[in-house]
């Protein structure tokens, strides 16, 4: 191996590592100075800079959102998302920091044991893969945190349902909860996607809690069915085989601050917010439940008919 190939600049590499280590402990303000080399290390430094600015920007956005959220009642959904976000980011961040430590160690000992470039390359690939993974997670959060426009747009319903699942799929997997979805890909509703996502996440996390309460770690099943029910309406049914409710509980679930969860676990706002959102869409939300059997929510929304279809 020629000497020129050992081209790692230790000082530059240490600067990258230093900034990533600061990120790991929550300091996202630092940026790595770029050189004119335009090599792999510069590409990596650039990637890390973009990632940390994105994280910082989103974190601030989340903080701002959090302070106004209580008023708008978005707190319940946001709490779910932030704890999921922290958990989701910790594993890839551990992997990124870990392999950078190995690369660093290899460079430091290069004078006594030659650098195995194939191995370094494989370490870099793992770093890159996990930075991308973090990027995907952040993009999801961006979509969720984006200030929703008050206006409604024709939206593919299955996409909204898919995005809602993406945000809590890790938690469902951990609790061994199977998910069955039967959503016609052609269903289009005139909705505010981020608001409806909030409704679905709320219903899905309630279903998860009901299943855990009934079956502990044995898991359970959530079923989502979306179908057309008439020329003017479509229906989304979200059902679970969880603990179910008594008639008395069921009659109060849409009341603000009503909760059966222990202190600190539920705000009692989720379902009342969901109810409000569905009503704002000109729809309705109803619930049937049987103790020890399970619960099903039915959301009815006006169907979207395109101007051409309408005129036919």
């Amino acid at each position, binding site marked *: 191996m020629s000497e020129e190939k050992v081209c790692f600049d230790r000082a530059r590499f240490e600067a990258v590592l230093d900034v990533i280590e600061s990120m790991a402990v929550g300091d996202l303000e630092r940026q790595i100075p770029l050189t004119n080399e335009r090599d792999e290390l510069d590409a990596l430094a650039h990637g890390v800079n973009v990632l940390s600015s994105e994280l910082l920007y989103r974190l601030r956005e989340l903080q701002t959102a959090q302070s106004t959220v209580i008023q708008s009642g978005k707190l319940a959904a946001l709490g779910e998302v932030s704890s999921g976000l922290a958990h989701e980011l910790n594993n890839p961040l551990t992997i990124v*920091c870990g392999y950078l430590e190995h690369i660093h160690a290899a460079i430091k000992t290069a004078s006594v044991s030659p650098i195995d470039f194939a191995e370094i390359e494989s370490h870099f690939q793992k770093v890159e893969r996990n930075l991308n993974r973090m990027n995907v997670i952040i993009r999801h959060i961006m979509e969720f945190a984006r200030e929703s426009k008050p206006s409604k747009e024709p939206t593919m319903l299955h996409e909204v349902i898919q995005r809602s699942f993406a945000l809590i799929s890790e938690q469902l997997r951990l609790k061994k909860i199977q998910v069955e979805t039967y959503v016609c890909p052609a269903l289009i509703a005139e909705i505010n996607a981020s608001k409806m996502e909030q409704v679905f996440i709320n219903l899905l996390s309630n279903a998860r809690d009901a299943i855990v309460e009934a079956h502990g770690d044995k898991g359970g099943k959530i079923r989502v069915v979306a179908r057309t029910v008439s020329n003017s309406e479509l229906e989304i049914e979200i059902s679970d085989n969880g603990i179910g409710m008594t008639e008395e509980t069921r009659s109060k679930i849409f009341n603000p601050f009503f909760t059966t969860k222990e202190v600190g676990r539920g705000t009692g706002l989720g379902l009342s917010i969901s109810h409000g959102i569905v009503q704002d869409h000109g729809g309705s939300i109803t619930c049937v439940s049987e103790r020890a059997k399970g619960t099903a929510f039915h959301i009815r929304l006006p169907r979207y008919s395109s101007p051409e279809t309408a005129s036919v």
Partner: protein
Amino acid sequence: MNGKPRLLFVDDEPEILELLTYTFRDFDTDTALNTDAALEILREKHFDVLVTDIKMPGTPGFTLIDSARKLSPGIVVIVITGHHQEVPEEARQKVSQWILKPFSLQVIRGAVLRSLEKTTES
């Protein structure tokens, strides 16, 4: 202790297991993706150190810790977790180190080496 120390890593994230195996490539290591798989390995071999996550699909990590201490008496337990929570009272006695993700490899290597030194001293 005869030969290299034996370590068992348990985490539901395969890439974390891969990273730990590489980091401790100078040791004898085994990995498992969940409690049940880990218990199967523990029934067959003796381990000096168990490094495990707590929140995993299926049987929780705490059950693994209790069973591991019965199957491999003297085993040192190190917890790695992404959940920033108070260390539960009942865990304090059983767990030698509680390491939060993201962790530095120096920290985890240090924790394993220190626990092994303590085992050989005692």
